[in-house]
């Protein structure tokens, strides 16, 4: 490994339009021929930093040097011209074109008459040199996720990239594919290329990288070599020193609390086929907040969708207030008293083009007293909406205007207000405060606690460990589709939870 710096980023600051500060003065460097892991929780600012380097985002402050020269990267094309390319979490390939076509697509110096044969030949050579087996003539939609990733890598190599950034590359791969990817990475750095490996999986960082940079809350907290740390120390760095959470204690934990939700050995398929939830069991009682901690993409989303009726269950059972609800329709579950605050507010939680009043009644418009015999009672709807707007302090110019004119925080207040106004027995809350300002965050948390104290069961799924620690009565941790730990709050330290979240137990697997 050489010591020549190919990339140097100094004092990078990035503030998103909503006011979220993703990078607070970050320094980062990459040497020729090294694999540099960038480790941290969701929202630590890893991806933002790398998107800045790859030209997808512009920094608000800071300087970037590439091979010793100060540069201004305005676009992915600028980055590519400097030899920097990124393999994103979500693929950017066109499904009905071939591998070769996708690889040459968007190159600036293509002749008007394509010579695909020449391209295919070069692709074959390249794929052999780094051990990436791909048929240049295959169509993208015939390929597996792992093969698509190889195409993304080849696309960068075809453009002579020598700095390759991988954003969570293993999240879509099966175990043997991970091994193959690591082989490829090693052979690439042997050829003098440099790799940034963005991950939240500790054992990956430890096993593949030459150096590890740990980020937390927009800052670099450590830069270590894998041989210098053990996984305990690394977890402490990632999770940080958490003050004993100022947890709001339950009013009176009832001994005889009724069981509201029971999940038994649940298996659920993910979007790309294969199991996303691999046999999960747990129970939630009335007057209890069950917090599920975990890094994004470990099966929480699929688990929530199965419970709320949006995703079919592969096997196992879900019981709600004593009834088997596996396979029941969404409307039945709503009528039984299941509320759901979704993470995707705009995409799922509201119909942005419809007025505030319609959105406030999304879960109730078909039941008495909101309608009778299929006829909606407009006045009842309007009163209900006005009450939500008042109680939950939704700022809006009028309840007849489309929701899309509301700010993100106010849309979330509307959704929370709607879901908490339906006398639910169970509230499923999925990252309910993500992206909200402090005031709205506290407001939403207070509401959840008040509802819990009123006797509702709450299933809180959050990638924000602080939120889990602050609110939960019982904490479960999900990793790789499994519930790897369930314990009452207070019997598990932040470090322990962090270890589970990062796959700590699985290190020696």
């Amino acid at each position, binding site marked *: 490994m050489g010591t020549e710096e190919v990339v140097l980023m100094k004092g990078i600051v990035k503030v998103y339009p909503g006011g979220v500060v993703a990078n607070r003065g970050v320094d980062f460097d990459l040497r020729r021929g090294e694999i540099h892991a960038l480790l941290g929780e969701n929202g630590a600012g890893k991806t933002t930093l790398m998107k800045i380097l790859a030209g997808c985002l512009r920094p608000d402050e800071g300087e970037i040097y590439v091979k010793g020269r100060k540069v201004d990267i305005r676009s992915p094309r600028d980055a590519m011209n400097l030899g920097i390319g990124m393999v994103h979490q979500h693929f950017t390939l066109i499904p009905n074109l071939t591998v070769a076509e996708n690889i040459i697509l968007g190159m600036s110096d293509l002749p008007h008459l394509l010579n695909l044969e020449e391209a295919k030949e070069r692709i074959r050579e390249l794929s052999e040199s780094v051990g990436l087996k791909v048929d240049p003539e295959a169509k993208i939609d015939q390929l597996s996720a792992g093969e698509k990733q190889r195409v993304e890598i080849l696309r960068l190599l075809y453009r002579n990239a020598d700095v390759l950034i991988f954003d969570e590359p293993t999240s879509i791969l099966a175990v043997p594919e991970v091994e193959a990817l690591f082989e490829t990475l090693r052979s690439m750095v042997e050829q003098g290329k440099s790799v940034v490996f963005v991950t939240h999986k500790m054992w990956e960082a430890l096993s593949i990288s030459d150096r590890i940079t740990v980020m937390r809350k927009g800052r670099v907290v450590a830069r270590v070599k894998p041989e210098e740390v053990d996984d305990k120390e690394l977890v402490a760095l990632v999770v940080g020193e958490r003050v004993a959470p100022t947890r709001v204690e339950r009013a009176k934990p009832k001994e005889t609390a009724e069981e509201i939700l029971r999940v038994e050995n649940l298996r659920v398929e993910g979007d790309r086929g294969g199991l996303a939830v691999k046999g999960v069991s747990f129970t939630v009682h009335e007057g209890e907040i069950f917090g599920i901690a975990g890094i994004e993409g470990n099966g929480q989303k699929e688990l929530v969708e199965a419970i*709320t009726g*949006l995703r079919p269950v592969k096997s196992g059972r879900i019981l709600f207030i004593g009834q088997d609800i596996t396979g029941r*329709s*969404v*409307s*039945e*579950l*709503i009528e039984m008293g299941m509320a*759901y605050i*979704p993470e*995707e507010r705009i*995409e*799922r*939680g*509201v*119909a*942005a*083009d*419809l*007025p*505030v*009043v*319609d959105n406030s009644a*999304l*879960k109730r*418009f*078909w039941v008495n007293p909101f*309608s009778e015999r*299929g*006829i*909606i009672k*407009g006045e009842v709807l*309007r009163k209900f*909406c*006005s009450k939500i*707007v*008042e109680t939950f302090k939704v*700022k*809006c*110019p*009028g*309840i*007849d*205007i489309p929701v899309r*004119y509301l700010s993100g925080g106010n849309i979330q207040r509307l959704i929370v207000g709607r879901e908490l106004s339906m006398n639910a027995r169970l509230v499923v809350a999925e990252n309910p405060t993500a992206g909200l300002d402090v005031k709205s965050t506290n407001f939403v948390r207070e509401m959840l606690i008040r509802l819990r104290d009123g006797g509702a069961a709450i299933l809180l799924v959050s990638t924000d460990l602080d939120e889990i620690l602050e609110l939960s009565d019982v904490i479960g941790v999900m990793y790789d589709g499994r519930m790897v730990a369930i314990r009452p709050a207070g019997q598990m330290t932040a470090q322990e939870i962090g270890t589970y979240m990062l796959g700590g137990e699985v290190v020696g697997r």
Partner: protein
Amino acid sequence: MGDSVDGGESLMALRLSRVLGSLIAIGLALLTASLFIGLAGANPVRAYYYMFVKGAFGNSVTAVETLVRATPILLVSLGLAVAFTARVWNIGAEGQLYMGGLVAAWVGLSLGGLPSSVGLTVMLLSSALAGAAWALIPAVLRAKYEINEIFTTVIMNYIALYLVSYFLTGPLRDPVSQFPESPTLPQSLWMPRLVQGVRLHLGILVAILVITPIVHFLREKTTFGFRLKLVGANPEAARYSGTDIGSIVVLSMLISGLLAGLAGGIEVSAIQHKMRMELSPGYGFTGIAVALLGNLNAVGVLLASIFMGAVINGSYTMHRMAHIPVGMAYLIQGLVIVFAVASEPISERIFRKEVVESAD
């Protein structure tokens, strides 16, 4: 910031901005068409005078003729407004209308000796069902297999036209006519006229006074209408709140087919008294423009239908007096679609300025 949550004002402003958008669309369409009128060697002001003042609303006879033209357009576009609300793009109203007309004629000719009211009811109901049945195929393909309904409905138009052509040159052909058309219906099945001497028939009143309010009620006041809007605005939010998207797609398509078929039946019963290849001068397509121009709202669609009826009806007078080809009516129609679609961001901007920004 106005914390007034009663929202009456914002609702008014929203509606007004949409009406304004439609008026702008009509204005721009007429303005652009006047270029072509000028190219055709006529004075646009005079041409429009003949079209609207003399031709469309000149006297009671021409005004009634405007309504005669407007009625099938109204029925078709009311149905399309229902489908379009759910973002189900039924482009097959023309074929559904033809199937309605064909079945109306077939049923009418097979019905012997029934009293007029019963016979008419049976005939018109079967025309509506025929239209709905024709719409069912693309609806199910979309709901079950996610096959884009735009393509299938367009294709179904051709199938309908050729099917009609087969029947009118074959089994249903009038043996004594030299044209491919059905025999004339018995007089008992002719839609009654309300005033002697003009073609003011019962169907016009039914369309305006019965069906328009029903569609309005359905869209604005029922849970079904709510679900239509929800599926149209955000299918994922619809799924999340327990609406079965497939059934809404099928139902909305069926309703639009039902009304298009009925339009065909009424044309056969009230205007042609037989089934002909020339049953419709493209009412099924005009309805698309009218539904958009009317902002998918039943009242708006009613006004837009009368406007389009006036354009078509007036184009004949314009042709006679200013020698502008009748095709100008369809040019205006096409321009209206273009500008109606383009006016959406304009009315959006008006609304944003008036309500949202002034509220901050």
